[in-house]
């Protein structure tokens, strides 16, 4: 038995660590872009959704429903496989992943934005309007600062979900954490160790997010 050459690597080495580090960086890049761009779009869509003009809220509501009611995996396929055929452009796998995360995050986050805005009572609008403030001024100085407090807890929940959803990009063979885990698993069969490390790295991204949420919630509460 001892003569049979062993093709299976029986421990993780420095190259594997490097692969994991690269994969971690790729996951972080995907998530940060998804989160930042998603939030920006979410505010635009959420403001439109809470408008009383139908030409604003109807398209916003349609966007939210279409995105929320279809799986992110399917959206990823549409962006990566169908869009190139329709538009005759090739979408690099990284940007396909970012796009899927952005539209997903923006649709869910838009509802959080809307709920936050609507949590600020009519009396606040009236008080601000009676002082001669414009819509933009009221949003900026009166409504959004109060809405933000309501938006942070569900918003962070969404961000954490986004980090985990980023694993779907692995189906396009993009080497983010989950895909790196699969590669190392196939190479070493050390399933417990490999996925133990991958899970720990996901935790390392998500946990600070929830701490940050707690901290900012507490800080915002100070103001009455």
């Amino acid at each position: 038995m001892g003569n049979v050459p062993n093709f299976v690597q029986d421990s993780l080495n420095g190259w594997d660590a490097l692969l994991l580090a690269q994969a971690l960086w790729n996951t972080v890049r995907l998530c940060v872009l998804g989160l930042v761009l998603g939030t920006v779009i979410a505010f635009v869509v959420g403001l439109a959704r809470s408008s009383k003009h139908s030409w604003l809220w109807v398209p916003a509501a349609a966007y939210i429903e279409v995105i929320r009611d279809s799986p992110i995996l399917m959206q990823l396929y549409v962006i990566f496989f169908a869009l190139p055929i329709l538009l005759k452009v090739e979408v690099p796998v990284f940007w396909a992943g970012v796009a899927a995360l952005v539209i997903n995050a923006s649709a869910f986050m838009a509802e959080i934005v809307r709920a936050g805005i609507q949590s600020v009572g009519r009396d606040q609008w009236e008080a601000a309007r009676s002082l001669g403030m414009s819509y933009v001024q009221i949003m900026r100085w009166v409504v959004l600062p109060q809405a933000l407090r309501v938006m942070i807890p569900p918003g962070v929940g969404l961000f954490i979900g986004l980090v985990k959803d980023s694993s779907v990009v692995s189906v396009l063979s993009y080497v983010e954490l989950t895909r790196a885990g699969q590669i190392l698993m196939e190479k070493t069969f050390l399933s417990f160790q490999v996925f133990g490390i991958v899970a720990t790295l996901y935790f390392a991204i998500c946990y600070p997010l929830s701490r940050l949420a707690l901290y900012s919630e507490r800080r915002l509460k100070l103001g009455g």
Partner: protein
Amino acid sequence: MVKISHIHKHFGRLHVLNDVSLEVARGEVVVIIGPSGSGKSTLLRCLNYLEPVQSGEIWIDGVRLDHHRTNIRQVRAEVGIVFQSYNLFPHLSAIRNVMLAPVVVRKRPEAEVREEALRLLAKVGLADKVDAYPGQLSGGQQQRVAIARALAMQPKLMLFDEVTSALDPELVREVLDAMKQLVREGMTMLVVTHEMGFAREVAHRVVFMDEGRIVETGSPRDIFDRPQNSRTQAFLSKIL
């Protein structure tokens, strides 16, 4: 200063303001009394366009309130209103509440506005509560911050919408005192209130409203001691 001419307003089938006309001169203090649902608050809210009217005209300092946007904001900036439920901005300290509109709407320098805000808060007796948040203040204190906030825009006209109705009895006086101070300074004021003592003491003219109409108007003495209209008599006999 204010000229209201034959205005009508409906909420659905309810005729809330029915052919209301009223003029208020500069420096005049007019107190509006009447049973609830008589349209008093709605009338005030129409004066800075929180409610649009369906017909009739409202003129404030020579400017007609109509649907043009900038015009409305300009008028609002010059008409201060204080609400029954204070409506302070809960995320801002007392002084920030007072400073917000002058800085954001009037674009005045912050340092200058801050000085004036301190002066106004001192005037309503809150020099020691400058940095407190609304949640840390009593109802009477909040309402006085709301008065200072409205005054910070240097309005030509102040509207008071049942500003003491939500207050505990022992806190009413501090708010009324702040208002009396304004009367002495010659501010033009339209006051909706159930405080008949206040009306008798400071009003130049008292208006009695019922079912969306102005039923009777006259000096406090005329209205309180010699009401002509039977509905005014009935209302006053119930509350005095």
